[in-house]
């Protein structure tokens, strides 16, 4: 083609030169400029006739390039309405024929709940228009703690919207026993919370039963895992033997915690007990000694009685190694010491009732009242977190960050009366709160984050591993190698994609010392939730695309359009006619 173009252009230039010479050489020089112009037009139009001249044009009118994709949950009426109002013929695809969709489409109109992120990626750059179907009946949002420690509350929370004109009952069932239920009144959208204390240790799948007067509507799996608590190592220091320490020591020891306690019985004489520990000598507090413990519980008098070096060792352990320190206040506390300085005690001037119920952080209800003789309150200050308060919000236990660790300050010394009164639960929740808050954090956690609210069978699932400090090029899942790539900014994050082929609990992901259990749902589980997620993903995908367009990246197509030859012919003829008439006129 290129040669043809050059030949034509060359010949035309020669012709033009020849004609120009002839015109200029003519004796009658009237209307020379007009003649030259006419000749130029004639030759140019001749060349244009010989050459295919085309211009690129915005591709606006290409019929039959739109298509409709029907995804799950599409509304029949709106589809029919669309087809009726749309004059042109459109192809309609079902969601399972995604692979056959022509990628040169100018628009793909999606009806229903939309597509998953992976499916959207496979559509390349087809412009999308999304007509989503509303989801407004049933569970529209749900969450539960998928991993909890033994003894913790398991609660399923969510939003349920009830379109019926009669109430709907949501019940949690575990091991074929109904555990808790709520009723959503007719024609209302309400949040719900269902609680239980699971009895098993390990994995379990409870189920959420949704039923109305006509019978069961839905039964959805609720998988979660209960992990046994790992025990703590606790050091008890006391200036004198007392009931409080004795009860605490026994309670901890009976629950398999390792406790070493030392109470001063005379000058430099101590009564030592070791529970679930092999005995060792600890007349002096040293760094290697403290490395063994997660928490020190001591009264202020005993801390004050320690030597300056010992106090410095404890402070360093708290600040740099994150050990917890629980200080029991008494009147002899040295106000300038590191453990007492942040906390200011006061006795309330108002008349106090002789007993007071305590409100423990994260507990559901106040405790059984405890004699309030002989304890003062702690003034709450910024940077401190009150853990236990009384009904007038006077702080009784407060905690403060100290370097990597925490210092807890408690002014209550008669919690053992709960035990004597048989209120073991209050005792347990009080000390659980304190000890858990103070405990030294051990061992870095390794987690696997699973993207997507309900990972389902036969769908790709992105796994995000978080493991500090070690390379994780790949891991094995049920014998399949899963290759991971590292996050360039956060080196402890590793990512990979996995297609589960089996529903239910998956084989544990083992890496380093931990094994992590995860669950894959069946195709029909939690339909509403996955529909909402798909709708969101589709919307997000379209929004992202539109953002890219607005930034000036041209994605719409421009096509070459050949200009019709008739225009050039007309120019040629007009020019020739002019030249011919001009010759006749000049001949006159």
């Amino acid at each position: 083609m290129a040669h043809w173009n050059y030949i034509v252009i060359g010949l035309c230039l020669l012709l033009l030169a020849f004609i120009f010479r002839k015109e200029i050489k003519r004796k009658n020089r009237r209307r020379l400029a007009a003649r030259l112009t006419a000749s130029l037009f004639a030759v140019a139009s001749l060349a244009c006739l010989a050459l295919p001249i085309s211009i690129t044009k915005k591709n606006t009118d290409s019929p039959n390039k739109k298509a409709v994709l029907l995804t799950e949950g599409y509304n029949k009426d709106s589809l029919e309405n669309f087809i009726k109002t749309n004059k042109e013929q459109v192809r309609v695809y079902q969601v399972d024929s995604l692979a056959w969709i022509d990628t040169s489409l100018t628009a793909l109109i999606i009806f229903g709940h939309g597509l998953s992120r992976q499916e959207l990626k496979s559509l390349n750059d087809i412009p999308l228009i999304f007509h989503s179907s509303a989801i407004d009946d049933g569970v529209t949002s749900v969450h539960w703690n998928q991993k909890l420690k033994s003894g913790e509350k398991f609660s399923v929370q969510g939003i349920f919207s009830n379109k019926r004109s009669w109430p709907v009952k949501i019940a949690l069932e575990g091991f074929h026993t109904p555990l808790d239920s709520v009723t959503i009144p007719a024609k209302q959208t309400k949040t719900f919370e269902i609680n239980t204390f699971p009895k098993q240790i390990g994995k379990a799948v409870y189920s959420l039963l949704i039923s109305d007067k006509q019978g069961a509507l839905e039964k959805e799996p609720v998988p979660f895992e209960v992990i046994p608590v790992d025990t703590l190592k606790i050091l008890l220091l006391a200036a004198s033997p007392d009931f409080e320490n004795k009860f605490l020591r026994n309670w901890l020891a009976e629950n398999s915690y390792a406790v070493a306690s030392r109470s001063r019985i005379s000058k430099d004489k101590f009564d030592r007990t070791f529970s679930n520990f092999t005995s060792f000598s600890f007349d002096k507090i040293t760094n290697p000694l403290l490395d063994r413990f997660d928490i020190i519980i001591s009264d202020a008098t005993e801390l004050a009685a320690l030597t300056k070096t010992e106090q410095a060792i404890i402070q360093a352990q708290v600040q740099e190694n994150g050990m917890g320190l629980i200080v029991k206040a008494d009147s002899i506390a040295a106000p300038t010491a590191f453990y007492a300085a942040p906390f200011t005690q006061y006795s309330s001037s108002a008349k106090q009732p002789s007993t007071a119920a305590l409100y423990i952080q994260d507990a559901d209800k106040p405790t059984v009242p405890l004699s309030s003789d002989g304890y003062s309150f702690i003034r709450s200050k910024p940077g401190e977190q009150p853990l236990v308060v009384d009904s007038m919000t006077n702080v009784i236990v407060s905690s403060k960050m100290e370097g990597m660790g925490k210092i807890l300050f408690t002014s209550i010394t008669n919690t053992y009366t709960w035990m004597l009164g048989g209120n073991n639960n209050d005792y347990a929740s009080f000390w659980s709160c304190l000890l858990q808050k103070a405990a030294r954090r051990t061992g870095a956690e390794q987690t696997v984050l699973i993207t997507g609210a309900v990972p389902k069978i036969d769908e790709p699932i992105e796994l995000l591993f978080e493991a500090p400090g070690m390379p994780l090029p790949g891991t094995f899942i049920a014998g399949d190698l899963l290759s991971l790539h590292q996050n360039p900014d956060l080196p402890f994050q590793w990512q990979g994609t996995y297609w589960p082929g089996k529903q239910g609990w998956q084989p544990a992901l083992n890496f380093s010392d931990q094994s992590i259990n995860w669950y894959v749902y069946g195709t029909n589980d939690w339909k509403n939730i996955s529909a909402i997620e798909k709708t969101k993903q589709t919307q997000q995908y379209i929004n992202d695309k539109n953002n890219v367009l607005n930034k000036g990246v041209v994605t719409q197509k421009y096509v070459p359009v050949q200009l019709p030859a008739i225009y050039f012919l007309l120019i040629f003829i007009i020019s020739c006619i002019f030249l011919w008439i001009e010759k006749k006129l000049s001949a006159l």
Partner: protein
Amino acid sequence: MAEKTAPHMIGSLRKNWVTVTCLSYLFISLACSYIFSVCGNKFFGYSLLWSIPLCLVIFFLFLFFDRSWKIDEHDVARFLNNKYPELEESAELLLAPVPSLPLLQQLQARKNEQVLGSIYKPGIFYKKLSTSLLILLVAAIIGTGLSMMRVPLHQETDIASSLVPAQKIKNEILLPAISSFTVTIQPPSYTRKPVRTQESFSLEAEEGATISWRIKTRSAVRTVQLILNDANVLALQPNNDHTSWTASKPMNASGFYQVKMDTIVSELYKMEMWKDQAPVISLQTPKANTVIDYGEPEKVMLNVVVKDDYGISEVSVAATISSGSGEAVKFEQQQINFDNSFAAQLPQYQLKKSVDLAALGMKPGDELYFYIKAIDNHRQEKRSDVYIVSITDTAQLMSVDGLMNGISVKPEYFRSERQIIIETEQLIKDKDNISEEAFRNRSNNLGIDQKLLRLRYGKFLGEEAESNEDEHLSALGDDPKDFGNAEKVLDAYTDKHDNAEVADFFEIATKNQLKATLTEMWNAELKLRTFVPAEALPYEYKALRLLKDLQQKSRAYVAKTNFTTTPLKPEKRLTADLSKIIGPSKQTNFKSNAGPDGLIRTALSVLEQLKNRGNFNSDPLPVLQQASQQLADKAIAAPSTYLSSLEALKRIIASLQNRSLAGLNDISLVETALQKMISAPVKLPYTNKKPANINLSKEYFKNLKKLNP
């Protein structure tokens, strides 16, 4: 129609009548049965199919009482006569053959024939039919409305049953070799129940019952044994050809058993024991502690109800009388029998008995301790709590022993309660010797003394002087200007000092007793001032007793004890030498807190894994086997709750050993039972893990420290 002959017309009318009546009865019975069966279905859950037989029964009842099918032509004629005066009461003529009639009647018959022709229409009975159709329609509407209505009670059970898998009563699976068997339970004699025989191995029997098994086999077997609670073996005795086996055993504990024939073992059958309950005694009167004051009748009314599950053979009162005080106290035991006869051994007796304390030999100051003893026909004895009845000793109240020593007696310018009593008694004695007026005067004076005493004690309670209230009220005045003056009104009705109720030093219990004392004094004063000193005496005694009690309460007694101190070593004293003292050191190790509950908790999640057909990190068998032991212990105690799940667990273990799949039903049955066995764990403290990005945080922390040292 006019061509029809008259008898023919009457005949067709008759047929019409009968049909319409029967049809209307059918409709009404349909309506009734529909309503009844819908009600029965809604409220009692009977099947709707019952409506068919019910309908038939009602229909035949109607026919039976009405006898419509007996309607004949004469009835029709009578009906026509009643309804149509045109027939002139002579429709019967139409029935007879015309030629046989006399002339006049023939003429009338002809005329009637024409009239009948004009009035004849088959629809004259349809009104009845339409009424019954209306009834049916109404019934249908009501019935449909009823069936649409939701019965709340019914619905609840629906939901409950949808949540809990129904514990259906299953048929027992027998060993194939058994051709027939009977289990005979002979209840023990105390139950007075007859011998019963059943044809199922699962049995429930009274404590001490004798259970006999008789098993017939299809062919001869070598041994037949009962394995009790997985442990003991009871061999059955064969007859000569080894096809009939018998054994018997007394019932002494709940549990379960299996039948073993040669080597084949059956499923588990439950064996539940009904324990004989001890009698229940409820004493309605007297109260736990009764004090009989001076002047009250020295009698106690016993009102007892005794119950037992089978029968009571004996009830009696065991009484102990204590008399005297200090070291001279004497005890005397007596048994008091009720007047009722217990020969019938009824399960419940309502018993009444009036105990005369004087007849028992009780004097003032003595106390009667008693309890009710009931023995049921299984010789189980039950005793009630101990009840105390005491008679006050007025003599002791009068003694002044305690006051004589160590207390400086000040002249009393008011009479004590004791003195008032003495003088009252003196007054009663003197009554016959003095004039009426003098008696009244003295009685009134005593009343005044009583009042003074009451006011004096009243001061302890913060009570006001008697006249106080009147003064206050008079302060209100009659001045019309003061009407509505809030200050004045408040003045009149308020005390201007602290609340009298709390402005003293006594405990509430003391104050209550003081108040009770004052009440008695009030009563005594009333009687004295109305000149009946004899009636005032009991109140005075009671007031004195309460006062004495108050005195006693404020005293503390300390017993003398012997104590020898260790001899001191003067050379070691105050040297502060502790070098030879070794600090005590103690070590204890507690077992893992998992315990038996922990095992069940793990077993639950193992079962969940099994349901998932998942692969296990460790072998599930040991956990399940240990759980099965614990479940078996539970099943022995409560076979009806746990036995079926124990069987299911054994099937699961067997299938695991055979490397086959366990049944989902079995797994859910075991899960339900296991989770019923344990309670939720207690919250315990634990340590959180560091986040994965710990190195990043550490760096940050170090740099932060550098900046703010």
